[in-house]
């Protein structure tokens, strides 16, 4: 726990990720402090999803180091992954299992004490209790997303990475997700990407603007608003 | 190696083996026959070995010149861009 306060929650040190024909991330240097909530915005192809995947350790960057609480994620022990919860556009759920089976499986692997109780708790949070015993393959896209969200935070991670958690959600679920992010996960470090800036802005403390041409720009929410005003006038 | 070359090598080897197999009727010299009787085999072995080397060398050389061409093109592109920046 000491690490958590001594180091930045997430530290990207000169991170680049080049695919064969394009550069998704280019010399990115960002620091995200514990408790910070960062909204990543940018046009398609600016590397938002790549950033989430790279920080989560699903993609190895071409260059550079990512540290979570001061530890290089590609050299850390598997135990260190307990601090990270990641949701990409695919929910990472076994489709022939029910929601409960999925959550139990991942909960066990994450060493969550008292898994069945924790599942009920999380199901209440996202009001998915009635969906838990259906097969994932029968669920709608939005419900899968909610279940994926439940999987992401089942082990109570300190760093939560969400790639477009709002896509495919109806207005009610959006509200619900907003409340969860805003209240329940208040003390967590969160990085999320979204196209729905109006929905996401009130939830965050900082904004990172990625673009294909320009350098990434990280601003606090207040600075972002004033920049925005400036551009409008 | 580009997969096409591998395929070609396999097909080539196959054809070669088939040709050799087809010529199976060749008389085989036993101990008592004249020492020159197995000359076709000697010729085949050396022909195959040299052909193999030459084809591979040709493949390497063609790749090399293609890559050199590409490098030259890109260097030209690079200097062009640099010039356009200075102007």
């Amino acid at each position: 726990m000491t690490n958590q306060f001594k180091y930045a929650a997430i530290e990207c040190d000169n991170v680049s990720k080049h695919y064969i024909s394009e550069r998704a991330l280019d010399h990115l240097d960002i620091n995200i402090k514990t408790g910070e909530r960062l909204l990543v915005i940018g046009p398609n192809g600016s590397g938002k999803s790549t950033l989430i995947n790279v920080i989560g350790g699903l993609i190895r960057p071409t260059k550079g180091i990512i540290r979570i609480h001061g530890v290089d994620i590609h050299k850390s022990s598997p135990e260190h992954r307990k601090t990270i919860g990641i949701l990409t556009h695919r929910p990472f759920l076994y489709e022939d299992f029910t929601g409960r089976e999925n959550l139990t499986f991942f909960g066990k692997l994450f060493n969550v004490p008292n898994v069945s109780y924790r599942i009920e708790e999380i199901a209440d949070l996202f009001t998915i209790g009635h969906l838990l015993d259906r097969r994932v393959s029968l669920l709608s896209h939005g419900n899968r997303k909610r279940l994926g969200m439940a999987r992401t935070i089942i082990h109570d991670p300190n760093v939560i990475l969400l790639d477009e958690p709002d896509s495919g959600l109806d207005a009610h679920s959006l509200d619900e997700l907003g409340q969860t992010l805003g209240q329940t996960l208040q003390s967590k470090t969160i990085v999320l990407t979204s196209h729905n800036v109006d929905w996401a802005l009130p939830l965050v403390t900082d904004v990172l603007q990625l673009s294909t041409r320009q350098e990434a720009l990280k601003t606090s929410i207040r600075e972002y608003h004033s920049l925005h005003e400036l551009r409008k006038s | 190696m580009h997969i096409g070359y591998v395929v070609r090598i396999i097909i080539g080897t196959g054809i070669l083996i088939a040709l050799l197999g087809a010529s199976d009727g060749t008389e085989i010299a036993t101990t008592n026959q004249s020492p020159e009787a197995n000359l076709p085999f000697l010729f085949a072995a050396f022909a195959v070995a040299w052909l193999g080397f030459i084809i591979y060398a040709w493949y390497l050389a063609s790749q090399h010149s293609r890559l050199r061409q590409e490098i030259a093109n890109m260097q030209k592109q690079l200097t062009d861009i640099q010039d356009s920046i200075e102007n």
Partner: protein
Amino acid sequence: MLLQNRIMLGLILIAMMSALYLIFIMVPTDVNLGVSQRIFYIHVPLAVLSLIPPIIVFITSTLYLVRRSPQWDALAHSSVEVGLLFTTLALVTGSIWARPTWGVWWTWDPVLTTFLILWLVYLGYLLIRSYTVEPDKRARFSAIVGILGSINALAVYLASELWRTIHPDKVIGPAAEENALDPAIQLGILVSFIAILLLFAYTIIFRTRLHSAVNQIGSLRDQIDDLVYRISNK
């Protein structure tokens, strides 16, 4: 670099020519096998050198997985490619030798089986390279295949040793007994071995150069991208 090239090529040419002279003119014809015995002068060096790539591949692939530097991957790939060439030629020349000598094109002898498996492993290695798109994955996967493949070649040899071998004893290899052969034959085998060894080394070096050319193209593309990026920022 160009001068080195020429010296190397000249050396190969001289060695090749003297090997040909020795093989066809100086060396006496074998009493038992006739002229087909002369195939040995090219078959044995090819076969012996085919055993070196697995060793190189094992070492360089391990180094790649530990260090992750692309030069090891390039060396491993080059030696597999040259190894495929040498193994193919060793198999074909060996087969051409076997027909007049043993009366068959092929026999399931441990040495032959090992070479055939080695040949398959090399093909598998090249196939996995061409079927994997991302450069990083390609290097990792082929390193794994390379390591297991070279261990496997050894295991296949040991496994098929369980059956009796009819491959001739290695009297003609480097481990030959001293008085077993005519000095002219010894000289012939030595010179053609050196010639083919030079060829082997040269092809591997030349092949790795293709890799560095590809890398150079990559870094040139990076530079161009950087410039374009800078222009568009102005």
